[in-house]
């Protein structure tokens, strides 16, 4: 671990913390435009975080320590995930900390804590949201793992940095398996980030909400951390998707110019990806909660198909 790598890693984390609310703001803005509404300002998320951090925390009577710790755990998990995923450079000191499977575990840890905290208060909405979150989570995780196994089979490694390095610096080869995996990954990230076909992030409508139901009891800085963590999760998933399926522009070696060149590439890719996300959300209707297993089952199926196609077509004996 050298000094430059450490600095690069810190810079990537700082950038993630800064860019994540911006990405959420951009998606919300695009969505408002597509839906013919007047859009909130791009920096709306920052304003909200600022406001929430200044407010006092109100705790429910029955709240235990877990309820207070959970936002910090969730936030920490998301920051760690953002640090492991190669956003700017594949030369990461933190990369050996966790491979892709552990990365899925980090997301799982955050999910468990937020669900437990939701159930901790004992309100019906909290436990409802927690259960639904676990339902979505336990279906999304195997699909995500299958997607990752497909990419891991191509690069023969489960380390994210190695996978991205292999995929980014190859000859131009069409991998049909990657197309399957890409679609599956899109499905999974929609479900994981509480986007429209599974959950609507902009609603407090009682019967349909998942993520919002879990965080109803939070206020003040706790809520701010959770909102920030949600933005970071969207950012992490977007960056993981971009790194796996559109890895061009990510710096490989340790050089300042490489890092500086990677930033505009990342921002441009995130902007396009965010606009696409908003477009897909606008075009689709939210499905019933009992259709969510079907949606995620399709994702799992596509990921398995990707693996099979990889075995059949791309390994010549």
């Amino acid at each position: 671990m050298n000094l430059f790598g450490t600095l690069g890693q810190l810079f990537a984390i700082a950038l993630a913390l800064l860019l994540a609310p911006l990405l959420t703001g951009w998606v919300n803005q695009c969505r408002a435009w597509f839906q013919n509404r007047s859009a909130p300002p791009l920096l709306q998320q920052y304003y909200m975080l600022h406001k929430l951090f200044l407010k006092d925390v109100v705790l429910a009577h029955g709240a235990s320590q877990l309820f207070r710790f959970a936002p910090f755990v969730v936030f920490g998990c998301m920051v760690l995930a953002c640090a492991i995923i190669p956003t700017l450079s594949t030369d990461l000191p933190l990369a050996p900390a966790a491979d892709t499977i552990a990365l899925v575990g980090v997301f799982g840890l955050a999910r468990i804590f937020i669900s437990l905290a939701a159930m901790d208060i004992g309100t019906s909405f909290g436990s409802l949201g927690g259960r639904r979150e676990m339902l979505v989570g336990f279906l999304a995780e195997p699909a995500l793992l299958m997607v990752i196994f497909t990419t891991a089979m191509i690069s023969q490694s489960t380390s994210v940095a190695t996978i991205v390095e292999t995929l980014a610096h190859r000859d131009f080869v069409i991998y049909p398996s990657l197309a399957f995996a890409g679609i599956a990954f899109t499905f999974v990230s929609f479900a994981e980030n509480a986007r429209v076909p599974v959950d609507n992030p902009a609603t407090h409508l009682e019967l349909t909400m998942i993520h919002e139901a879990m965080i109803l009891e939070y206020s003040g800085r706790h809520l701010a951390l959770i909102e920030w963590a949600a933005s970071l999760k969207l950012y992490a998933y977007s960056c993981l998707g971009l790194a796996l399926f559109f890895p061009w522009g990510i710096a490989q070696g340790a050089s300042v110019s490489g890092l500086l060149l990677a930033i505009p590439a990342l921002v441009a890719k995130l902007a396009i990806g965010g606009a696409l996300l908003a477009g897909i959300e606008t075009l689709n209707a939210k499905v019933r909660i009992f259709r969510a297993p079907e949606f995620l089952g399709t994702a799992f199926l596509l990921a398995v198909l990707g693996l099979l196609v990889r075995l059949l077509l791309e390994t010549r004996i």
Partner: protein
Amino acid sequence: MNADISLSAQLINLFASVILLLAFAMLAQRRVLPLINLFALQGLTLCLSTLVVAFTTGQAHLYGSAALTLVLKAMLLPWILHRLVRQLQVRADVEGLINIPTTMIAGIVLVMIAFNVALPISQLSSTISRGTLGIALATVMLAFLMMIIRTKAIPQVVGFLAMENGLFLAATSATYGMPMVVELGIALDVLVGVIILGVFFFQIREQFDSLDIRNLEKLKER
């Protein structure tokens, strides 16, 4: 690892994968009109894949097959089916005997079987597109599955046509297609089959007031 595979082989593999994907999409589709559109899309992909094979290998008769596929499977048959649906005023969702997720799992199992069966066969072949034989077999099996689980007449016909797509892909990938005479014959068969089945649809509905072919299982009149 993959550097020795030329661009055209990659394209063929890509198109074959798209055909497999569309076969699954058809299996999962609940409505009739999107089902027909998916079938048309599958025909188009098949045509493109055949074109790539024809261009790469210089087999002139494959251009004819591709043109035939385009006209028949991507345009004429979907158009006939669309017209039938309009005339029969079918609006209800397609009903399956088993639910969609179970169907999908069955489909995955079929794909695994098809891939395993096809692997040793495709190693005997020396064509550029031999890898896609497994996919062709899987498409045939998925179309079979669709015919088995669907209860309405139109999705069954679409399943039958999709099976023909799979067989065509198998022929192209294993032996660069069948002789032109055979292909013309099959094309004519399929066309005539769809037209006759279209007439059948009206008869079935007149008799039972529904397109549910489970009604045909009763042998005696009530």
